[in-house]
């Protein structure tokens, strides 16, 4: 379980998040929604040690992550799929996956199994495994980015707007895949999405972040019923 309590964080003097508390459970998708600039990415950055934490705590399965450098947090089983620049563009698809797997401390057999699991989930990546990653289409690239996050079988997967800027068919497909990942893999998924409708379809729990503060916490159906919030901030309802 990921437990964040009264988190205040930002970048240097720029205070972005105010008293953010959030809980995300294993085998669930927890979605964080909110307008541009609300601080969604900053929330993920804070969890991953990429932002400055002023106060509050972040705990993963009762272990404190605050103050750990990113590479240590990564070794604790956290994967962060960035919104942009989330692949190694000059390596092939499979080199991308193998490279990351090697640094997770997995043994040879685990790497092969994990690789097979990923190719089962994204068959297109298997077809393109010898292709240089920088030449993939937007959707394929995003699948690779998520796979890079999955290869080490994380306990916590942080996804920052995985469907942003993709063609509609890819959006639907990726959303389906995220749901499939939740069912077949034992991990906590924290999903930041701008595609509110799609996110509400697969999320178990939703947080709405506005100007650095959590203004709603509940299930997707509860959110849809809160017409004021849904309309004003998310353009739903």
């Amino acid at each position, binding site marked *: 379980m990921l437990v964040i309590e009264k988190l205040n964080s930002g970048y240097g003097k720029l205070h972005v998040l105010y008293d953010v508390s959030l809980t995300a459970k294993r085998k669930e998708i927890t979605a964080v929604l909110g307008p541009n600039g609300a601080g969604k990415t900053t929330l993920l950055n804070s969890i*991953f040690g990429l932002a400055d934490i002023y106060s509050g705590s972040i705990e993963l399965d009762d272990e404190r992550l605050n103050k750990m450098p990113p590479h240590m947090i990564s070794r604790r089983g956290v994967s962060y799929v*960035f919104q942009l620049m989330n*692949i*190694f563009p000059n390596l092939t698809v499979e080199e991308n996956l193998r490279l990351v797997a*090697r640094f997770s401390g997995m043994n040879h057999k685990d790497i092969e199994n994990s690789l097979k699991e990923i190719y089962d989930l994204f068959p297109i990546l298997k077809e393109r495994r010898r292709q240089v990653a920088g030449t993939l289409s937007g959707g394929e690239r995003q699948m690779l980015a998520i796979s890079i996050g999955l290869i080490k079988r994380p306990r916590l997967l942080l996804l920052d707007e995985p469907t942003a800027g993709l063609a509609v068919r890819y959006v639907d497909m990726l959303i389906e895949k995220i749901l499939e990942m939740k069912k077949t893999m034992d991990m906590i998924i924290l999903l930041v999405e701008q595609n509110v409708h799609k996110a509400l379809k697969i999320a178990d729990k939703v947080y709405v972040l506005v100007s650095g503060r959590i203004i709603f916490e509940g299930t997707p159906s509860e959110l849809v019923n809160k017409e004021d919030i849904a309309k004003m901030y998310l353009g739903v309802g």
Partner: protein
Amino acid sequence: MIETLISGITYSSLLSLMALGITLLYRTTKVPNFAHASFVVFGIYTSYTLALLGYNPYLGTLLGFIVSGIIALILFYALLEPLRRRKSSIFILMMATLTYDILMFGIINIYADYLQTTFKIPARNVYLAPQDFTLIGLKGVTIVSTSLLIVLLMLLYILLNRTIIGAALRAVMENPSLAQANGINVSLMLALSWFLAGGLAGVAGALLPMYMMTDPSTGMLLIAPMFCASILGGLEQIYGAPLGGFILGLATTVLVSWLSGVIGYWIMTYSLMVPYITLIVTLIFIPRGVVSIILKR
């Protein structure tokens, strides 16, 4: 003519070793490293000191690698890493390397003074060619510099492509944030690249006094050709450096010597301009270097 060619190949090999480090550092830390000048000079004084103490100056290649590697590590940990953590701009980092270079220039001069008073020799003019050996008509420095370049290039290739540390280094060059996000200690990998780059410059420096008259400011004179070779080859590919090193090295030696026969001996005086002219032409016509033509990208 053949003698000029052999001399040109020697110079090109040494230049390649220096440019290799410039490119490596540019790929990992993204900073044009002006302190490469002093990394080379520390190599020069390492083999010179060994020669003064009665050892074979070629031992300086090994010791010079370590000495200059450490000089580079100090720069990284004392100046660059704190600045990088504060997210300073590349320009600030570049100025830091220049500052460090000036500081090291001072230290080298103090050391030269020390040698001068201790051994009663003109330690500012370092020339070891008379002590060089010859083998099948070739100068020792030619044999050693070309074969060391080949061996070190192969070792670098193996390190980068066949080891896990090399894979981490490549990941850092490709996408440092993603590398860090996947458990790679980026700072440690950067430190390694500084040690390697400093070491390569140290090797080249250690061999230089066997090739030409050197002094504490030799590094500063060579910094232009180093950068030029590195940019000419292409900053996006490490192996562009030896390519640029040889094109520039041969242009400065063989081409100029041929031109002096055709146009007149006075042209030799202007051989120092070759790197600058090459640099300008490269930046205008092939800004991504010769490798970009070869790789057709």
